[in-house]
């Protein structure tokens, strides 16, 4: 009997089935990977385990006893600790206060600060961390330390099940190593660790077994050393990857964007690139390496400290409005906050960069309808609010804005983040088509297979420094990972 067992879990939201008869078994002292594309149901499953969501049916048992988590507090008390990718710390509270938040040690109605501090320091020590001042508000700590504070929260409460949700997505390589050590300590303590990550090499390194989910269904449970990375991807995606990346025979034209020696306020720190008509240039690198900042500098959103940016024949820095006029469009990595106005209609979102002074709704709708058709956006019509669409369809609207504007240079930041596999395929096909039509595409992505599949050339950014762009057939995943990590 496994220590934690979730069986027959079903959950639906409205008409969409999020989880269908899903099973997850984790032993104590095991690091168990939970793998699947975005939207495959991993988060929902974990939300159910943590009491934040109630399943429609199914049962959970913990240490041989049935377990029904009513709310997050209940699950925490039962020894289930969640460590989320979006940090769930209160920035204004101190480390000690955060670690024991909701489980405060009190004496006579007042918080026992000495005991709180002691318990926190003990937990940190167990994780091999001794250089954190537990009285400082966590907003002053570096991101990596904050993540360790979250894990200390799990240790301080003697959690028996620890869920790590994408813990490395915002960490540097050195911090990742530290985190792995901490995971080993948790394993030795006999905790059942559930590890969620998109980085398959991490999973190969630290996990014992893995459960793969696809579209809310169990695809299988495997011992990690029995499958290779390609095999995992095939299980996640449901087919071999080479079939989903189309690549036509492209011909490079003249350079449309020429960046040399670009420095931003902090990042990028020395970036040079040439982007040609008819090519897709990929930018790889770790999160926080300065890829987004580089795009923002090029697009005039962030200040340029030094360096040259040449768009066609225009030279020098510019504001976003001028970039649009020059035929440059940018797709933000954060669709919900930056990319789209979620409450405005599809038509408004598509046409916002090129509105005539007197806006005609009917005219807008006609134009939008045309692009809805071309892009295959699934919606009720041009007047529907963008926020009501699925992630994939939202992204199509965001891209349609650039195409409607008629840009030649497309700066795409994580164009497939958070969208389903089907939409991804459509976007890959679209990018290929656009390159064929002579657009120049600069694409930042954290997902290596798609960079390798879609791009003509790939450059790697490490700590703000952009390496030389290599033709895709002259590089491979390992080389890119090494360069991104600075090794």
């Amino acid at each position, binding site marked *: 009997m496994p220590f934690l067992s979730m069986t027959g879990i079903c959950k639906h939201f409205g008409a969409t089935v999020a989880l269908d008869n899903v099973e997850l078994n984790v032993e104590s002292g095991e690091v168990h990977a939970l793998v699947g594309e975005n939207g495959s149901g991993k988060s929902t499953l974990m939300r159910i385990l*943590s009491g*934040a969501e109630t399943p429609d049916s199914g049962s959970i048992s913990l240490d041989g006893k049935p377990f029904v988590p009513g*709310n*997050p*507090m*209940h699950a*925490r*008390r039962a020894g289930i600790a*969640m460590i*989320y990718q*979006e*940090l*769930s*710390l*209160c*920035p*204004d*509270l101190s480390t000690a*206060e955060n670690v024991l*938040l*909701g*489980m*405060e040690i*009190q004496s006579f*109605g*007042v*918080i026992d*600060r000495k005991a709180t501090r002691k318990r926190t320091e003990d937990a940190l020590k167990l994780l091999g961390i001794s250089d954190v*001042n537990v*009285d*400082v*508000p966590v907003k*002053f700590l570096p991101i990596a330390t904050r993540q360790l504070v979250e894990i200390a929260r799990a240790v301080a409460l003697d959690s028996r099940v620890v869920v790590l949700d994408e813990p490395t997505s915002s960490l540097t390589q050195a911090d990742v190593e530290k985190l792995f050590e901490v995971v080993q300590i948790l394993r030795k303590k006999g905790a059942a660790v559930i590890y969620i990550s998109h980085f398959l090499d991490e999973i190969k390194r630290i996990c014992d077994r893995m459960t793969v989910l696809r579209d809310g269904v169990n695809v299988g449970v495997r011992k990690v050393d029995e499958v290779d990375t390609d095999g995992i991807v095939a299980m996640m995606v449901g087919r071999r990857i080479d079939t989903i990346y189309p690549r036509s025979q492209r011909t490079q034209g003249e350079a449309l964007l020429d960046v040399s020696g670009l420095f931003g306020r902090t990042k990028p720190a020395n970036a040079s690139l040439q982007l040609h008509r008819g090519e897709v240039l990929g930018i790889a690198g770790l999160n926080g390496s300065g890829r987004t900042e580089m795009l923002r500098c090029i697009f005039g959103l962030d200040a340029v400290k030094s360096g040259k940016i040449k768009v066609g024949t225009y030279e020098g820095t510019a504001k976003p409005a001028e970039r649009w006029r020059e035929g440059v469009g940018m797709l933000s990595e954060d669709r919900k906050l930056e990319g789209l106005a979620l409450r405005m209609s599809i038509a408004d979102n598509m046409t916002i960069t090129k509105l005539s002074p007197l806006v005609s709704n009917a005219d807008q709708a006609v134009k939008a309808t045309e692009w809805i058709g071309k892009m295959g956006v699934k919606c009720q019509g041009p007047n529907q609010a963008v926020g009501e669409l699925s992630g994939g369809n939202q992204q199509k609207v965001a891209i349609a804005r650039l195409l409607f504007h008629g840009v030649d240079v497309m700066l795409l930041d994580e164009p497939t983040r958070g969208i389903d596999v089907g939409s991804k395929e459509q976007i890959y096909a679209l990018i290929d088509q656009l390159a064929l039509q002579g657009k120049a595409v600069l694409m930042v992505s954290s997902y290596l297979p798609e960079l390798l599949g879609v791009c003509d050339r790939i450059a790697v950014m490490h700590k703000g420094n952009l390496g030389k762009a290599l033709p895709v057939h002259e590089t491979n995943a390992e080389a890119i990972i090494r360069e991104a990590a600075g090794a």
Partner: protein
Amino acid sequence: MIKLLKSSSIFNLAGLVIAWLLVFTFFALKAPPAFHSIDNLETMARQGTIVSIATLGMTCIIITGGIDLSVGSVVALVSVVIAALSLAGYSPWIALFGGVAAGGACGVFNGLLITRLKVVPFIVTLGTFLIVRGAAKWIAHEKTINPPVNWLCDIISRPAKQTEPAPGGFIGQGLYSFWHLFPIGVWLLLILAVAVSLMLKRTRFGRHIVAVGSNEQAARLCGIPVERVKLMVYLLAGLLFGLSGLMTFSRLTLGDPTVAQGLELDVIAAVVIGGASLNGGQGSILGSLLGAWIMTTISAGCSMMGWDTWVEQMVTGAIIIISVAIDRLRVRKD
């Protein structure tokens, strides 16, 4: 670096003290000598009490990331309720509790609307700002209520000059004059300020207040009853606004449904000058009180100089913007 960060709140408080000293010195030099007499300081302390007590409640609300625009209306309602109960012949104690309870009821009303209907505090309290003011006018029939004078009228008035020696010899005399340095209302403010400050820093409830304002989602994931914390904060603030209303009644010795118009803005200004963030998570009682104290000093100084209210208003406005701008600059440097 850690040292610097640790002292950042002390930094803020020191800045406020310096700001107050600047304002005070300016008036002490320019205004008639009466300005810096002990007598006048005591008068200022009494004048500032109404805003200051309300500031305690508002600080808690703003730390949760909320706001309350109904303070002035609640204060007016409370003064009317106390006056009406007194006029109806109830004992001062019953009038007092009735008034403060009315304040608490307004707080619960606000809190329930905010947590149950999920309407943002700005809108809810914009509504209750009108509703409560209307209720005060309704109860008072749009007139002031003049109850017979009782001891409630002395809470905030200048202590009577000592006429006979206090018992207990030298120490007794000392205690007596210390106690009579301020009227009871000012003492009440000081005690409540210490209590609320400790509550925020040292109790579970207080830390939960900061957690909710700092990262509501995280607080919820940690199992903190976010809605209940918010409701309790609005209740607590309502009770404190009730005490503010009591002080207002004591100062006017009557119930006036049109009193304290715009008080909420003074209170919010004091909290903001004191270093709180309207985004929640940040704010301190001491800071807010210093903010209120700066505003009181400006107001007293301007009136001593014989300046019109427009001068006072423009100066106060400038101080609000400058203090927050300095804070922003400091944060950016960090």
